[in-house]
């Protein structure tokens, strides 16, 4: 395991972004998922949507050139792209619920083998932070998750069933973690791609659900950022 190294956040983000198809409307959750927009596929046009009312917004604004009235859902200043459109909050979520978002990439605390995931409330706390996650989870045509494979304490985040209150039942189909790429199927988690230097047994040991390891298991595909 000397040569084994967990995947970087950008590597995970690139791998998720490789799934985006030409013309897709993509919503990126706060934090790690926003890194997906750094991956640019030269032949595919992606339209980034933000639930605070933007369609087709651009990259982060350079410091000193921010428009203080133009932020993404993470509160980061972004720049407009030609052909951008602005909506109010009701219309922004209407389009999410109506299925116009092709993929929502979200962070999570836990993902379960049945596609449930949890990302809004920590155990033992009274409050929670839902934001737009529940709407995106039920509205987007695909829900992909990016997260560390385990908690800081080493506890698995891929589980048979979520322990934390869930964000939506049965919606996640693809998960990128620091150890690989996991497809959620009706049989449970399938390990599609694995971090270089890791063995399936090592990944299974860090996972709280039974992994299906297919014959065509591949090494984690490393997209490169331009």
């Amino acid at each position, binding site marked *: 395991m000397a040569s084994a190294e967990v995947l970087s956040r950008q590597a995970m983000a690139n791998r998720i972004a490789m799934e985006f198809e030409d013309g897709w409307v993509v919503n990126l959750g706060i934090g790690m998922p926003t890194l997906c927009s750094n991956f640019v596929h030269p032949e595919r046009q992606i339209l980034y949507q933000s639930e605070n009312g933007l369609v087709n917004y651009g990259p982060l604004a350079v410091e000193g050139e921010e*428009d*203080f009235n133009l932020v993404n859902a993470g509160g980061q200043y972004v720049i407009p792209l030609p052909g951008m459109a602005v909506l*109010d*909050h*009701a219309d922004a979520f209407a389009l999410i619920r109506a299925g116009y978002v092709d993929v929502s990439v979200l962070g999570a605390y836990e993902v379960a083998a049945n596609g449930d995931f949890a990302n809004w409330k920590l155990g033992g706390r009274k409050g*929670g*932070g839902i934001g737009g996650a529940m*709407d995106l989870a*039920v509205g987007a045509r695909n829900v992909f998750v990016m997260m560390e494979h385990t908690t800081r304490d080493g506890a698995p985040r891929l589980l048979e069933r979520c322990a934390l209150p869930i964000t939506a039942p049965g919606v996640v189909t693809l998960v990128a973690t620091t150890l690989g790429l996991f497809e959620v199927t009706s049989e449970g988690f399938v390990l599609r791609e694995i971090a270089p230097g890791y063995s399936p047994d090592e990944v299974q040991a860090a996972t709280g659900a039974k992994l299906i390891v297919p014959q065509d298991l591949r090494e984690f595909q490393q997209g490169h950022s331009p």
Partner: protein
Amino acid sequence: MKSKVYESFDAAVADIADGSTIMFSGFAGPGTPRNLIAALLAQGASGLTVISNTPGSWGDGPIDLKALIDAGRVRRVVAAFTAATHPSMRRAFDELYEAGEIEAELVPQGTLAERIRAGGAGIGAFYTPTGVGTETAEGKEVRSFEGRDYVLELPLRADYAMLRAHRADEMGNLQYVHTQRNFGPIMARAARTTLAELDGPVAAAGEIDPNQVHTPGIFVDRMVVVPADGIQEGARGG
């Protein structure tokens, strides 16, 4: 017709009574009616119910809802966040809420927006797919339409809405710029009295293209232009 332009923020908020329900626009900064909030803080109304995306920012930004909460003016919060997603981010709100000294209703953000929209659209209730199978649907009616489950949600209305807009004419027609828009248009319609603070001076009627009005003036009651030395967007809020 009485002018909708007020000379001061103090005058615009003067009649707001204890116990009022107030909607506050704003998402991560843009659209937050910071000058109206500052005036309301000085005015002293308490026991407020506030409806907003968050109960104020987590960081050290310019004034927002957190100032009213910290000052003990708020009795109840309806918001899409009642805790930050990271436990290290804590505000006075979190302490008060966990201690039971402030009430809160946590609502998924799209449901929050749709409930406000329903309140300003005369809709009695609606069914949304959001939250089905989660804690937020507990105790609520769940019903199936065309094979999919939806949860019943009720409209939100308010005594007042406060928002920030970019441009206005004397009829009260408003335009917002970029993501300053967010909750402004729907809150203006859901509240009995709408107060708008404005980036720029009030134009004569006819100077805004009727096709480009974001909030028609019939939804706007009081407008105050933010002076040059007023609170401007730019320093970050939550």
